[in-house]
């Protein structure tokens, strides 16, 4: 077996001050892309710039930060010692700053505890604290909420939103699509190393659906109501029609009435990121599995 292209011909740009969601199924190349942007691994071809400078530039490393997926820290250290260590890598020795960062992530009461006694959520939070040591312009967060309980989820989400309010750019790789939908301004979806979709969430989730539920419509009559990509299903004597809002909703309603049916509800439904993600990954040309360079 020859080497595989984990990331292939990926072109994208992240705008300053936004929360950018970088999505893809397992093995899509998300972490590899982040590692390339951080200069931890090297691309075989192409070029990438972080804050306008070539990757690996140490001046850029002074103003960016990274929180890896499931971070592991030196367990013999306390939370405060960890910040002291990472701070020293920036030439910092500001004890008050370390304490205020731990307070910001709500760990001020646990700063003298060894990291081996920290829960997953606390480890993520101390990770976020270390990522703020250098007052970064750009944060790379790899699966920041993976494996956390709902409370920790909320805390991390609030912190990320706070980062944007402070004018920082946040690049998040995540599988938690509902979280991404709540906080991201733009997203990119990659699959097998190729970019499949990218854009503002509002734009990508356009093309909303309408769900019409009716009673007293025969199956034959209901089948005649299909338009475009709409689906018609039957449940407990009711007909459920799921259709794009761009189709003629009134014509379908008239059709139901013409078939002596009764309209139960007409509910506009916003498309969810999860639907877009599944659709993108399933229908992507790269999903056929034909390529393996």
């Amino acid at each position, binding site marked *: 077996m020859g080497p595989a292209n984990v990331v292939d011909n990926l072109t994208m740009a992240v705008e300053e001050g936004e929360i950018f969601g970088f999505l893809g199924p397992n093995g899509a190349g998300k972490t590899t892309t982040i590692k390339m942007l951080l200069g*931890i691994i090297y691309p075989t071809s192409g070029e990438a710039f972080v804050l306008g400078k070539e990757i690996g530039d140490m001046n850029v490393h002074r103003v960016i930060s990274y929180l890896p997926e499931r971070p592991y820290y030196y367990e013999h250290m306390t939370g405060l010692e960890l910040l002291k260590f990472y701070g*020293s890598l920036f030439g910092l020795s500001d004890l008050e700053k370390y304490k205020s960062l731990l307070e910001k992530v709500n760990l001020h009461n646990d700063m003298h505890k060894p990291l081996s006694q920290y829960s997953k959520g606390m480890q993520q939070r101390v990770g976020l604290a270390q990522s703020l040591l250098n007052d970064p312009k750009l944060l790379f967060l790899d699966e920041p909420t993976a494996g956390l309980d709902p409370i920790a989820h909320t805390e991390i989400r609030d912190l990320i939103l706070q980062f944007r309010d402070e004018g920082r750019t946040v690049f998040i790789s995540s599988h938690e699509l509902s979280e991404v939908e709540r906080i991201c301004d733009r997203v990119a979806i990659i699959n097998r190393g190729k970019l499949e979709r990218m854009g503002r969430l509002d734009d990508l989730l356009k093309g909303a659906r309408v769900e019409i539920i009716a009673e007293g419509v025969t199956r034959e009559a209901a089948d005649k109501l299909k338009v475009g990509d709409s689906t018609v299903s039957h449940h407990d004597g009711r007909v459920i029609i799921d259709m794009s809002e761009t189709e003629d909703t009134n014509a379908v309603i008239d059709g139901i009435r013409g078939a002596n049916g009764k309209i139960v509800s007409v509910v506009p439904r916003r498309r969810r990121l999860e639907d877009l993600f599944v659709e993108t990954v399933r229908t992507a040309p790269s999903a056929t599995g034909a390529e393996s360079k």
Partner: protein
Amino acid sequence: MRVILSIAATSVGEAIRRRVLLVILLAGLLLLSILPGLSVLSARGEAANLVSTMYFVLQGTSVLIAIVLAVYMIPNEIERRTIYVILSKPVTRWQFLLGKYLGAVFAVGLMMGLMTIVALVLFWISQRPDAGRLAQLAQGPFMFFVQMCLLAAVTIFFSTFVSPLVNFFLSVGMYLMGTTLNSLYDSFVKNPDVNPLVRLAGQAVTTVLPNFSYYNVSNPLIHPEVEIQNPLTYYVNVTGYGVIYIMGLLIAGILIFDRREV
């Protein structure tokens, strides 16, 4: 420099908490502690025997500690992904590697220092030597320490491109060969009866491999009648040899590690 020292200090903190190293250290200390008792029981309860055995235990324990410690220093950072956060900071790979090396040296130094103190105290209790003799005996562990610095550099160098298991055997092999280089040199290079090609190969091997036997100066220390003509010059020369060799190994390691995907 601060970055390198921070990484080194963190590495020492990790190393002195590793159970396997503490077990080796404890075994070494235990052996050192029972040696004076065994020496009294031996037919020739000579101080020379005691010192010789203490040096042997100290050196053997130090070799194990140095190799086991250095073998896992970089692979552990990669496996636990701690290296990613460090390299995302303004830290270059050469700073990282140098910090890890210094961390290994400091940790080995700490453990060797502890063993040396225990050995000297026990020797003083059992033999009551004068201060001059004690100071002379402390030179042996110092040379072993330089030897361990060289061994740690060999191991760190290998760890930039081979797995820990392979590295362990390579490092042990290098050490064993390096401690017999003088004998090899005498047998092949100095011997006029040997085939010129074999002599040339012997010359190449003894030049390229690190000569660990330079640091085994225990004989003159154990037997004061055996003297090095100019001890100071000898110690400076072999320490200089070690430093140059260590620098060469670290530069080669940095060049490999710099392009390696972690």
